[in-house]
């Protein structure tokens, strides 16, 4: 009972503060903080917290401070829908970031679209995410843009002519990444020796790897998330497969050096962000992140960090009325024109189309950086 009373007092205090000054801008973050995708979600939350702290410390947005409302969507579609409803209708946030996985985004984004709430994906790289409608934004560079560049680089440097393919076929993200690899391989005339699959939670990949090895490819194309990607690298090297491995976004994280310690060399990845990218903004981001969280950031933290800054840049051009419905529309209208140079480099939006070719949401317009791993670091390939 005492808890109830203090909760009511606390509620009265916060609502009082909001009505007098409108000093708080509520921003929703739906991230997978538990479940199988939790390691991405945690990095994403950290990225948002760091950005919010920095923006608020620098005086906020035209005097208003950003308040993050972070909810755990567990990396599951059903939960993402619940969390979106809570953030949009109950917490009445101005914009929702997330959810973490493309799977969940396809399920939850239509709710934001229907309620005219801007929604901003920072880690959804599957095709069609922004086809939902004009309230859907993302700064995650799609794999359709990244993978062809990665392949071009490795063909140029290593003379790769034929590849074996291994991918997770029970996940929208790794499947979509596979589809993009297939398209890029075809466009660039690279032969595929064999295509193998695995499922989430598998512990053994040696059957597939042995089969791939027997087809004698020049490199292995791998579309996996970290939990499987690490063991795959280790088991490949244990089987004596020392070929270059070309990865998608899912295994582009410094964590791979830990998970595949001793077996992490010669992994080629393309991504909008690299820990080795030597710009001032990126260096500051990495230092601040390490100071606050005690670990190295990854691509997902960097994209979350940039995303909040992009929205903040848009909000600075908008005069908020305090009417949440109007403010959401105003933010949506301001977002497409934002340009920003963040941890991931220069950024702007490009118009995406829906399935019938009509304009829909907005994708990222950004150049990827191709890196190869060596001795526990990413080396940028020029």
């Amino acid at each position, binding site marked *: 009972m005492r808890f109830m009373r203090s909760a009511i007092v606390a509620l009265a205090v916060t609502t009082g503060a909001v009505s007098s000054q409108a000093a708080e801008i509520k921003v929703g973050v739906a991230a997978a*903080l*538990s*479940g*199988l995708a*939790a*390691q991405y*979600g*945690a990095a994403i939350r950290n990225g948002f917290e760091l950005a919010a702290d920095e923006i608020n410390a620098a005086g906020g947005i035209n005097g208003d401070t950003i308040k993050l409302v972070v909810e755990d969507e567990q990396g599951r579609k059903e939960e993402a829908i619940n969390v979106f409803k809570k953030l949009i209708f109950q917490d009445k946030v101005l914009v929702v970031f997330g959810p973490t996985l493309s799977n969940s985004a396809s399920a939850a984004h239509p709710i934001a679209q229907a309620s005219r709430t801007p929604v901003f994906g920072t880690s959804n790289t599957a095709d069609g995410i922004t086809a939902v409608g004009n309230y859907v934004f993302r700064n995650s560079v799609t794999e359709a843009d990244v993978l062809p560049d990665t392949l071009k680089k490795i063909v140029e440097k290593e003379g790769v002519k034929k590849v074996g393919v291994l991918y997770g*076929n029970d996940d929208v993200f790794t499947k979509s990444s596979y589809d993009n690899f297939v398209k890029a391989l075809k466009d660039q005339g690279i032969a595929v020796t064999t295509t*193998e*699959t*695995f*499922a*989430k*939670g*598998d*512990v*053994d990949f*040696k*059957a*597939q790897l*042995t*089969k791939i*090895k*027997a087809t004698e490819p020049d490199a292995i194309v791998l579309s996996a998330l*970290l*939990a499987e990607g*690490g*063991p795959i690298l*280790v088991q490949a090297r*244990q*089987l*004596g497969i020392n070929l270059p491995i070309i990865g998608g976004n899912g295994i582009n994280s410094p*964590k791979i050096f*830990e*998970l*595949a*310690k*001793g077996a992490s060399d010669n992994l080629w990845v393309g991504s909008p962000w690299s820990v080795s990218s030597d710009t001032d903004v990126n260096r500051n981001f990495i230092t601040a992140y390490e100071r606050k969280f005690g670990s190295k950031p990854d691509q997902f933290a960097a994209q979350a960090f940039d995303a909040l800054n992009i929205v903040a840049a848009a909000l600075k051009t908008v005069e908020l009325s305090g009417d949440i419905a109007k403010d959401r529309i105003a933010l949506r209208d301001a977002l497409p024109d934002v340009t920003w140079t963040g941890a991931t480099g220069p950024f702007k939006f490009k118009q995406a189309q829906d399935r019938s070719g009509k304009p829909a949401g907005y994708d990222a317009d950004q150049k990827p950086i191709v890196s190869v791993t060596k001795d526990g670091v990413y080396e940028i390939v020029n």
Partner: protein
Amino acid sequence: MFAQQLINALSLGSVYALFALGFTLIFGVLGVINLAHGAVFMVGAYAALQAVVLAELPIWAALVIAFIISGLVGLAIDILVLSPLRKRDAPHLIPMIATIGVAIMLNSAAQGLFGADTLRFPPGVVPDGSIEAGGLHITAVEIGIIALTIVIMVVLLLGLRRTSIGKALRAVAESPRAAALLGIDVEGLFRKTSFVAAALGGVAGVLISLYANAVYPLMGQPMLHKGIAVIILGGMGDIRGALIGGLFLGFAEVFAVAYIGSTMRDAVAFGLLFLILLVRPTGLFGKANERKA
């Protein structure tokens, strides 16, 4: 490639069998499908990881610690959850559902304590590289898993056949009530079985996470699904069945990948399983209306 796939199949099959041994033991004696076995498996992996990382113990000591800690967790599950349900004569589905709750609690606790990140044992805890002979590769962990699976199975089988505790266990498996009338301490045996089954699950957790190089809170979940298939195939509650069922699933999966295609892996493995159950509905070693320990 064929010889390498044989080795792959043998080690994967042993992985499944190792997990299924404790799982089937608890069913054979207590008559409970313990859906917390996957979580206990995870507890063992984390216990050993902490022992290796924090206390810098060698891997054999970490295995002993994992054995004891997950055994104690199994004992606690029996005392706190299964035993009260037995006393109240709960219908047989109720303990199974209760163990789902236990699994969720253990998974969340692990995530709260250690975070959701995938972790791994530091390199060098076991010899990392693989032994190569004539183009074939096998790792120390794989040899360890295969050997330990066989050793544990032999010990369990001999223990059940030859020792008085084993005889008592088989009597309990036949009918707890009749065993109690004959003066056997049924509750005590249930406790011992819960400890041993969970302890074996914990050891399996350590070995399999060394094998896969991955320790994470939900690591027991996919294994649990395979484990259920294995013990159904082997005959619920049968120790030999767990080994043969595990090896069967391992071989079916690996050879489905090798000769049919990896997208068809689960379809082939579980299709075969279904066919076998059509012919032998009680599983390979199961007998109708009878539980065996």
